[in-house]
């Protein structure tokens, strides 16, 4: 995928960032010696390249310390890079941060922008001035957001009286008030219950489909990634370990898919199994098999099973996304290199 940098929502070219960290081997008094700095350069982000098209929904995932926060800080302009460049909505974020701020939205699951003792409407009024919006435009926008997010009377109740889910809906609506073209969502569902998490994901998808807002999401929650995003970028130790469709991430990573079979009548255990297949459990009327890797076709295995007797039910399951992500966090090398759409330096 190649597009002009000013056409993409985000275009990153060899972007890197290092930090000076105190050198633990240098003692306090040694830091006073001229030229003996006592600091070491620590690489948070190796040169990375990626593009995000306008209207795309992309997840940036990786374990703690992988470089996600550094990437977001660079893309929002609150951090300067050590090397490379980036364009966000056609602007260089660290040079045009003040202008870019009018075009983007940032939602941090653990940081609220709503006033705790005041109704959300007061925050909306403040944001109207912050984003330099006409009163009539805001009135229309609030009416639209109220309908979409089912805010109703929530707008006039002090935020402290709202549930976490209600608060998050108001938080998202506040982030959308200025109709941003790009939204950075950092752990937007953290701390929410199942129902509220689901609602947030639905609203984020809708924000994308209805307004065309580009979504750049970071989350440790597998469901956020799976249900909201179409593409995932996996960061590991400051390098991109994977960049491709979320579905590919799972398909490529599948080490073993399971096949649960329920027979109509009891059948005897087979002597041998097809290559790349393990028989994990056998009961008179039920077998559970594991098919290794993504390369082993499931069809012939199912055909082999059916040949042993009439089948009442067959269920083929991929490992849940949570397991896929956990495995990525444990060891990025486990990924099939073919799936790595981007070569790392």
């Amino acid at each position, binding site marked *: 995928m190649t597009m002009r940098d000013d056409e993409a929502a985000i275009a990153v070219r060899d972007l890197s*960032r290092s*930090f*000076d960290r105190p050198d633990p081997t240098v003692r306090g008094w040694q830091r006073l010696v001229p030229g003996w700095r006592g600091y070491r350069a620590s690489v948070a982000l190796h040169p990375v390249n990626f593009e995000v098209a306008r209207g795309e929904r992309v997840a940036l995932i990786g374990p703690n310390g992988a470089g996600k926060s550094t990437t977001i*800080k660079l893309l*929002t*302009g*609150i*951090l*300067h890079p050590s090397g490379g460049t980036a364009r966000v*909505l*056609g*602007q260089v974020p*660290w040079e*045009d*941060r*003040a*202008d870019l*701020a*009018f*075009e*983007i939205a*940032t939602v*941090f699951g653990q*940081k609220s*922008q709503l*006033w*705790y*003792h*005041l109704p959300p409407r*007061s*925050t909306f*009024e*403040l944001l*109207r*001035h*912050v*984003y*330099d919006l006409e009163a009539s435009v805001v009135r229309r926008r609030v009416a639209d957001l109220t309908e979409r997010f089912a805010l109703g009377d929530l707008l006039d109740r002090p935020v402290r009286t709202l549930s976490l889910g209600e608060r998050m809906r108001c938080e998202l609506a506040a982030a959308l008030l200025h109709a941003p073209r790009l939204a950075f969502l950092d752990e937007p569902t953290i701390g929410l219950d199942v129902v509220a998490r689901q609602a947030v994901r639905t609203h984020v998808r809708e924000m994308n489909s209805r307004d065309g807002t580009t979504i750049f999401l970071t989350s440790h929650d597998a469901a956020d990634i799976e249900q909201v995003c179409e593409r995932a970028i996996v960061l590991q130790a400051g390098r991109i370990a994977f960049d491709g469709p979320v579905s590919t991430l799972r398909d490529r990573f599948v080490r073993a898919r399971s096949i649960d079979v329920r027979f109509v009548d009891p059948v005897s255990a087979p002597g041998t199994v097809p290559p790349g297949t393990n028989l994990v459990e056998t009961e008179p009327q039920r077998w559970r098999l594991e098919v290794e890797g993504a390369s082993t076709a499931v069809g012939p295995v199912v055909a082999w099973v059916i040949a042993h007797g009439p089948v009442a039910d067959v269920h083929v399951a991929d490992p849940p996304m949570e397991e896929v992500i956990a495995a990525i966090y444990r060891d990025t090398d486990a990924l099939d290199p073919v799936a790595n759409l981007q070569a790392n330096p």
Partner: protein
Amino acid sequence: MTARPRLRIGAHRVRVLLAHFLVNLRDQGAYVGEVALGGGILVVFLFILGTLWEATYRAQGAETLGGLTWPQMTWYVTFTEAMVMSRVNVARRIDEDVRTGDVAYALLRPGGYLTSRLGAYLAERLVRFLFTLTLGAIVAMVIAGPIAIDPSAGAAALLVAAGAFLLEFVIVAGIGLGAFWMEDTSSIYFVYTRVSMLLGGLLIPIELFPDSIASVARILPFAPMIHGPARLALADDASGLLPAMASLVASMSVAGALVAVTYRVALARLTVHGG
């Protein structure tokens, strides 16, 4: 999108400042208890100070001290206490913002971080000042009785008080920004408040200071912030307005330049060095 013209940025900043001021004004309703507690302490202070000054006037057998009668002295300390007790510890809030990283998140919104902090400070300070001044006036009335205040001098005093609020924000914001380099800025704020109370004329008007200390106090920015508005309120006319404002503007120019440089360096530390 093209960059916004500077004039438009300035007008936008003013609107954002006003919006922050108004939303913080509404938010102050949640902190009535805190303000009332400060009011209780003020009542005790004023009774003690009024009694002490009464004893001093009696012991000296003086009709006036530093050009003020005893009732005027009681009203003087009422005004200076209102100035000091309405203080808002912006340094602590900025310090927290730096430490928690909230300052970085604030930079993601248009309008400027210090603009939002100034709006919040002015709203809180105004509410506290009006409350302490009103309560203090009631206590002064009970202790020393009413005094004649020239309306133009009173209005001038309020103008100087507003200027003093701005100057104090600049100084205290500068202390808070120290958190980019220091582990804890509360000790500096503590020293600032104590020195400003001593040299600003909180308990004793500058006119009664020994000459050597008075000459130092007149150079420093503390007296124009505390003594200045209180003394002007008790003056016969508003002729002291211009010198008082000139003194505030001079202090603000120096402090403002220092804080502007500090803020730029702090932002560079955050954005270039990563905080």
